[in-house]
């Protein structure tokens, strides 16, 4: 067997392997023998059909093709072993020449990740936004609105009412004519909401993504009334090549409901928050908001830390690895769509195919990069799964599963994989935050470790 190798960028090796013709003959015999064992051929005991008879039955070409495939697999294993290589992606072996049999294949080498001096990374911890009395009041107000009695009214709309509106909106560039001169209905609307329910408060109008001034424009409307108005849009709205300056609205009020807000007292506290009095409801809300903000702050901190780690890393991978990642990503995305009842083919047909694939490729590349960086961090830091924590959680799950009816029992294997992933991710995040906040510097920095070792032990030092 003659092997020649050629390095191909990035991180690939092209192997050309020439084998002796006798090996092809041997592979042909093996394949024929396998057929002879697998299929019943009249006149012959299984495994006793001569290769030429098998070739006559299944066709010389297909027997040769299978023999080549088998030989290719054998040759690939032998060549990888001889060259001391291992491929991170399946190697596609092709027949270069039939005489003598010569195969060529591209081996994808391990991706390379250099995290640089990641231990010196420092990321400032985002500030934890304080929960003020105003925040608690706003939440209480929202709870009151949710608990309010809804009474249909026939009067002009007021602040705090819940209005059902038909809203149509058309974006207009700065140089376009006055809306009065335009036939709006002749054009497709950029915003078209039928029977949309909106609470008439500044906060709700803003959270619905409507521009400033919308609330004032719809106040005082009577049932069934239609209003036409234009509102300026923020500078960055619309496509960059044709920014929209304003939006022309046609709004009809179809239903109006007034909210009869409950009194803010101890009875309300007991009803909505299971609290003994209003003060304890306030402190409960405050605590829950603080908790949520702590989680959000940690998420933001983690994201910044991951961003810093990734931006300082130099990562390269063979193309086959990205191809595999794209396939995995598409398969996951497709499954997600199908779970929502959206058919994949129809979804793809509505989009620009080349733009879609390039988007998939970019996302897959980002995912691959993150995965490789994290794996390298795990490797360098020697992070392991906390086996005790896993055992504890699995014992809890087994216990829960045993108490669940058989038909509804969860898949413990899948749950274990999920738990392992969560635990490992928790360990990685914890370590990453320690690194970027400088808390782990002492036990991570080998130089500091050595320096500490050299210090005389103040307790056991011999008296000078």
């Amino acid at each position, binding site marked *: 067997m003659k092997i020649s190798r050629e390095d191909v960028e990035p991180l690939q090796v092209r192997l050309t392997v020439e084998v002796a013709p006798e090996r092809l003959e041997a592979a042909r015999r093996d394949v024929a023998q396998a057929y002879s064992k697998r299929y019943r051929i*009249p*006149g*012959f*005991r299984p495994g*006793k*059909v*001569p290769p*030429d*008879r098998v*070739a*006559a039955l299944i066709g010389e070409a297909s027997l040769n093709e299978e023999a080549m495939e088998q030989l290719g697999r054998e040759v690939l294993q032998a060549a990888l072993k001889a060259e001391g290589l291992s491929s991170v992606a399946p190697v596609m072996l092709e027949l270069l020449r039939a005489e003598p049999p010569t195969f060529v294949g591209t081996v994808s080498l391990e991706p390379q990740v250099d995290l640089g001096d990641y231990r010196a990374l420092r990321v400032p911890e985002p500030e934890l936004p304080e929960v003020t009395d105003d925040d608690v009041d706003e939440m209480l107000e929202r709870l009151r609105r949710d608990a309010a009695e809804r009474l249909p009214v026939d009067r002009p709309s007021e602040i705090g009412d819940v209005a059902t509106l038909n809203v149509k909106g058309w974006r207009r560039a700065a140089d376009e004519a006055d809306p009065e001169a335009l036939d709006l209905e002749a054009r497709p609307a950029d915003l078209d909401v039928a029977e949309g329910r909106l609470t008439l408060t500044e906060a709700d109008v803003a959270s619905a993504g409507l521009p400033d001034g919308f609330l004032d424009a719809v106040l005082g409307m009577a049932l069934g009334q239609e209003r036409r108005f234009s509102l300026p849009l923020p500078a960055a709205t619309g496509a960059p090549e044709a920014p929209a300056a304003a939006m022309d609205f046609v709004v009809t009020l179809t239903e109006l409901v007034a909210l009869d807000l409950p009194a803010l007292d101890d009875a309300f506290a007991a009803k909505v928050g299971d609290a003994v009095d209003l003060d304890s409801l306030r402190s409960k809300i405050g605590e829950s908001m603080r908790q949520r903000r702590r989680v959000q702050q940690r998420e933001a901190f983690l994201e910044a830390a991951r961003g810093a780690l990734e931006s300082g890393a130099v990562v390269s991978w063979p193309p086959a690895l990205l191809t595999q990642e794209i396939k995995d990503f598409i398969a996951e995305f497709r499954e997600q769509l199908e779970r929502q009842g959206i058919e994949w083919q129809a979804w793809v047909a509505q989009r620009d195919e080349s733009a879609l694939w390039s988007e998939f490729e970019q996302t897959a590349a980002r995912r691959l990069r993150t995965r490789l960086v994290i794996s390298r961090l795990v490797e360098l830091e020697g992070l392991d799964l906390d086996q005790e924590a896993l055992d504890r959680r699995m014992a809890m799950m087994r216990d829960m599963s045993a108490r669940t009816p058989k038909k509804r029992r969860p898949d413990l294997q899948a749950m274990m994989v999920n738990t392992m992933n969560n635990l490992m991710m928790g360990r990685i995040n914890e370590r990453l935050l320690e690194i970027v906040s400088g808390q782990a510097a002492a036990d991570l920095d080998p130089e500091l470790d050595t320096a500490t070792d050299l210090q005389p032990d103040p307790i056991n030092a011999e008296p000078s």
Partner: protein
Amino acid sequence: MHRYEVLRRPLLSEKTQALGVLNQYAFEVAMTATKVEIREAVESIFNVKVVQVRTAVMPSKDRRWGRKTVRRSGKLKKALVTLRPGDSLDVFGA
């Protein structure tokens, strides 16, 4: 009888395959075919020289279905043809 009516099909089995080393080949032949007709048919169709022809009539095989006896296969005549050394028949995949 036309020579293509004499030879029905080659008999391919483990046993006839083994006869290949003796340069012998087996055929199913017409029940009325004579050894001379078989020799002439093989020689003219495959362009080989036949040294010897031996024939045998294989009895039909019956099978019992309860009280009934059912014929599973009809009787056939087979011919074992020995060729001159150096000649061979491709049809047997040898």
